[in-house]
């Protein structure tokens, strides 16, 4: 895995006596889709925040495309090539959907027309085009999640961090999204790191799965391999089955 796009080496984070992330290492190859799974409180979102620069790790390092980005600010992480979504969506409510995505697109270009064109393309790809002129605050929750993704994509990341963007979607919508991401990754060579409770999406989308529990990596491997791992079955899938029920 020396040719990895993103390499996470032994990162840790501690909050007031709680070891949220404990010496976690994994890698995402170029164009690869890796899922980070685990029960609630396993440290997935914290890991995301560490990678995206929202938090500074207590130890370990994060390397993107050969450059060490450990401890950088979120905007620096973004400029290094990390695009992220938030689990609790953060739309720019007063701006239109198009404008939201244009904010992201401005990372690559200062030209308004170019940014606008790029934003349109992404909106069409994610099926938000007909909502383009609506204020973001009028969107439904699934639409907002898609907007999050669109905005992050607009920054032309090398790797996209998706934090539970499928939650609350109907199965048909999930399949649609899965297809969209798979196409995107195949066509553009975009790498994706996702956390997801919707196992249907995880299994369909990811090439590789990393399982976290109590902040530690307990297992990793190909999807079917992980699904058979007794440790995972014991500590994780029990929860996951519960969590997969609608509304969980």
């Amino acid at each position, binding site marked *: 895995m020396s040719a990895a796009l993103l390499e996470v080496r032994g990162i840790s984070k501690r909050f007031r006596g709680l070891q949220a992330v404990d010496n976690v290492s994994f890698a995402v190859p170029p164009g690869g889709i890796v899922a980070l799974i685990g029960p609630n409180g396993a440290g997935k979102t914290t890991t995301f925040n560490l990678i*995206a620069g929202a938090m500074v790790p207590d130890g370990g390092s994060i390397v993107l495309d050969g450059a060490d980005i450990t401890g950088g600010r*979120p*905007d620096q992480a973004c400029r290094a090539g990390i695009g992220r979504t938030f689990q609790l969506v953060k*739309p*720019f409510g*007063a701006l239109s959907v198009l404008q939201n995505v244009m*904010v992201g697109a401005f990372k690559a270009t200062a030209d*308004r027309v170019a940014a606008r064109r790029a934003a349109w393309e992404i909106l069409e790809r994610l099926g938000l085009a007909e909502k383009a002129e609506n204020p973001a605050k009028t969107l439904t929750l699934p639409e907002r999640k898609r907007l999050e993704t669109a905005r992050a994509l607009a920054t032309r990341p090398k790797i996209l961090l998706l934090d539970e963007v499928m939650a609350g979607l109907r199965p048909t919508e999930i399949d649609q999204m899965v297809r969209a991401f798979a196409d995107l990754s195949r066509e553009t060579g975009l790498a994706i790191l996702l956390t997801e409770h919707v196992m249907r999406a995880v299994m369909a989308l990811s090439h590789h799965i990393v399982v976290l529990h109590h902040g530690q990596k307990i297992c990793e491997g190909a999807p079917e391999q992980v699904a058979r791992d007794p440790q995972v079955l014991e500590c994780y899938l029990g929860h996951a089955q519960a969590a997969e029920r609608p509304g969980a």
Partner: protein
Amino acid sequence: MRASRALGLSPRAAAALGLFLAVMLLLPFLVNAYIVSVLVVVLFAAYFGQSWNIMTGFAGQLSLGHALYVGLGAYTSAALFVHFGLTPWLGMIAGMAVAALAGSAIAALSFRFRVGGVYFALLTIAFAEFTRILFDHFGWVGATEGLFLPVANLAHDDPVRLRGSPVMFYYLLLVLSLAALVLSHSLLDRRVGYYWQAIREDEEAARALGIDVFRYKIAAMALSAAMTALGGTLLAFYDNNLYPDTVFAMGRSIEIIIAPIIGGLGTLFGPIVGAFLLTGLGETMTNLSTYFEISGLKQWFYGAALLAIVALQPSGLWPWLSRALGLWERRR
């Protein structure tokens, strides 16, 4: 037509704007000196509101101490004029630089230490008040005794030295306010405007999209401060006398921000609409209350009017008005 498209206006809105401009250009020929003096107050309020709007309306950082930049602009240019005879056109650049520097420093200190929201607002008050007291003791600019610009009663206006009649100031302010309008519009249409609004709506999300929030906030503050200082120079040369307690007054900071809030925070025309409405309201009430001979009545109605507006149109009158007139401005 091209101009109207460049401003993103519908033909109807462009016509309305054209009409408004024509009226404003002709107004001094149509009304008496009293109305002109009131219009000067309106334009000052509009311009200061537009300047403040960049900081708070666009970039979302609530500043309650903008009198600081009015004062820095006014005092810098006036002191340079009084002590060295420097033309106000250069003095205003110096004033803008001083204000931009002060604004950046305040913003840098605050945002570096992650002071935000209400705390930032209170910090801006503190800086303004602190500076007021400093100037109360600053002998070179007259301290509490005041700084006076020599008043020359010229037969003709002298725009080079900014000595002249209210009508001259009316046109200067009109140009300034239009320039601020065009500038605001063009900023909103660029990356920086998008970034400011993103920061206003959600800082964390803005950061995740690669925006150096700290830098953009400082830029907003510096620009807003510099623009305010430019108005401060005009104020100094219009009033011809400066006292720290009136120039830097907290009351002025508050007056600056009422018009844009009433008009519609973050909109292009809100500050202008708000300024017309508030000043008009104030004058009407003053004229009415002289019949009743009760001091305090005017202020009471003023407060009641503010309350009514914030209760009925909390996001400002312009969005509502433009919809009612069919001039719907794209919500930015």
